[in-house]
């Protein structure tokens, strides 16, 4: 009793209230590229970051800013980090969506046994609760030091649905995919080389719908493992693709590829205390993937300083 009383005196590291379970599930599902995936959660006064990675070559981060929550009370010092099963986090959150779109969920950390606690807020005649076991991190995750090249980063923006489609089409050659950006004529090329060859071009001038933005001062070409590239788009829920947003791809030093997606976490038609109500611009979850380039490919660029 005394221990729980003492615990009750100390506010937990985080209490936040979420009213858009669906959007949150969408955002987290986008980085769930396989079953039994572990995630690291990092809490701060700015929000929650969910980090997922694989074999030191692929990392994804979901940024859930504090503005996405109805209530965000942060009381920790430093930035608490803990590990958890991503499957259980998504499935656990998803259970709450069974109660209907008006459900508000409280997320609290830590619980009495260092769990992440989810529970309904003001649910009439009942409650739903979940406690998900967390673990202490034994390894420090690989730091993806993304450095842009030069003053103008090499990047392009393409509709998320289009990007997903292109990557899916590159499945049959499989193995490795080369991404080439060239300034003249401005064009992005995806080249698959494995069981066969397949090339998909995105010429900048062909259509204004194709490449929404394009920045490239010199030609670059890097190879990436197909399975990692596929993971960056394969799990984006269909509902998110319908929002018709763009994904931004940036190539950094050493060919590190950064892919940014935007996922809407707003409840349609519901005003939010933080956002202005026109399109709720602040209710967006940012998702970033980092993919390392393959080494020792014969046509690696020469002038990459």
């Amino acid at each position, binding site marked *: 009793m005394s221990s729980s009383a003492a615990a009750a005196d100390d506010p937990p590291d985080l209490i936040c209230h979420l009213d858009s379970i669906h959007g949150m599930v969408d955002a987290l599902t986008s980085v769930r590229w396989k079953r039994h995936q572990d995630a690291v959660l990092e809490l701060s006064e700015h929000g929650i970051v969910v980090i997922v990675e694989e074999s030191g070559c692929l990392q994804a981060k979901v940024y859930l800013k504090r503005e996405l929550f109805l209530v965000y009370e942060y009381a920790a010092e430093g930035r608490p980090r803990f590990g958890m*099963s991503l*499957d*259980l986090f998504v499935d656990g959150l998803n*259970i709450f969506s*069974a*109660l209907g779109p008006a459900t508000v969920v409280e997320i609290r950390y830590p619980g009495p046994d260092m769990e992440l606690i989810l529970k309904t807020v003001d649910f009439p005649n009942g409650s739903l*609760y*979940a*406690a*998900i076991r967390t673990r202490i991190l034994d390894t420090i995750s690989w730091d993806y030091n993304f450095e842009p090249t030069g003053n103008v980063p090499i990047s392009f923006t393409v509709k998320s649905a289009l990007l997903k489609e292109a990557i899916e089409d590159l499945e049959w050659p499989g193995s490795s995919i080369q991404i080439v950006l060239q300034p003249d004529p401005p064009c992005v090329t995806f080249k698959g080389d494995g069981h066969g060859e397949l090339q998909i071009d995105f010429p900048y001038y062909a259509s204004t719908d194709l490449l929404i933005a394009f920045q490239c001062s010199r030609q670059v070409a890097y190879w990436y493992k197909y399975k990692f590239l596929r993971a960056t788009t394969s799990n984006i829920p269909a509902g998110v693709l319908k929002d018709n947003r763009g994904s931004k791809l940036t190539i950094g030093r050493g060919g590190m590829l950064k892919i940014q997606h935007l996922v809407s976490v707003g409840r349609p038609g519901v005003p939010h205390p933080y956002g202005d109500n026109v399109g709720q611009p602040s209710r967006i979850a940012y998702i970033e993937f980092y993919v390392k380039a393959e080494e020792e490919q014969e046509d690696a660029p020469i002038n990459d300083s």
Partner: protein
Amino acid sequence: MKFKAFFTSDGVNLLDKRFLPALDKLGRLCHMYLTRDHAMFLHNLFAADGVQSVAQFKKEILFRDYRISSQNDDRIAFAIDPALLHRALRSALTIQLQSGDDTAAIQIKLVKKLPAGSRNPAPFLTFETKGMRSAVVQDVPISKPLSRADVLQLQTALDAAQDLPQTLVQVPDLAQLQSLVDRLKNVGDVLTVAITQYGDLHLHVSTSLITVGSEFRELRVLGVHANAPASEQNLSALSRTAMAIQRDEAQSVQVSMKHLAKSLQCHSAKPDCVFYGIAPQGACLTVIFQFFIPGTRLMDKSISFHCRLPVLDSGSS
């Protein structure tokens, strides 16, 4: 052994729109059991490890000109695939509608005939739809009618499946419960169900990595009822349930998530009320579906439908 009858139009609608879709989802094999007064569809009554279901109709609600005779006290039982029964009924219904003739009636009867390419006669439940201009016959294969001993065993199992839980709570929103259980399936295979005499239904799944619980409170109670102690209102659902069990004012059992999900498919029978209860000594989790007389709030006593879910572990009781 003889059985023949005409479907009433209510009976056809009841089976086609409500019961056969539900029975089909409960399992590919059920027993159709006909007596002088009742027609029943029974699932898993001989098995200990599946969801048992009993759907019983007074003969008048399904049939007219009901003729049954057997040397076994006019009782006949056989196994049938509800999906096939449904298909035959649907096409009979289509023929009836196409004939545009109100007098077109659907008759069913038990027959034995030679199936194509076979030398041994086999039993069938035959649908005959006669219109003014056409008549269509469809044969639904069934098992050999059960022997006198087997029918007796079926009747004994049926009698045993009738014991009511002391306390029943009404679940107001079955669709919500269904969508909840669909999502809980991802979390674990075993569900603890606790029902208190205060009208609380508590579902709880626990694995080494996650605990999920859902509590529905202030539900309508039938049977033994008690008032919840006011002092416990601020405690967690788990501790309130545990204390109620200690006071013998609640029971809890563990059931398979798969079984519960299956029993929730009975939702397609569109019951007007659904009650959950735990049988005495925690023998099983009982789900009772009630149907109102159309246009009223009165229970239709000519239809009864309930499921029994086997208990995995006796839990608190």
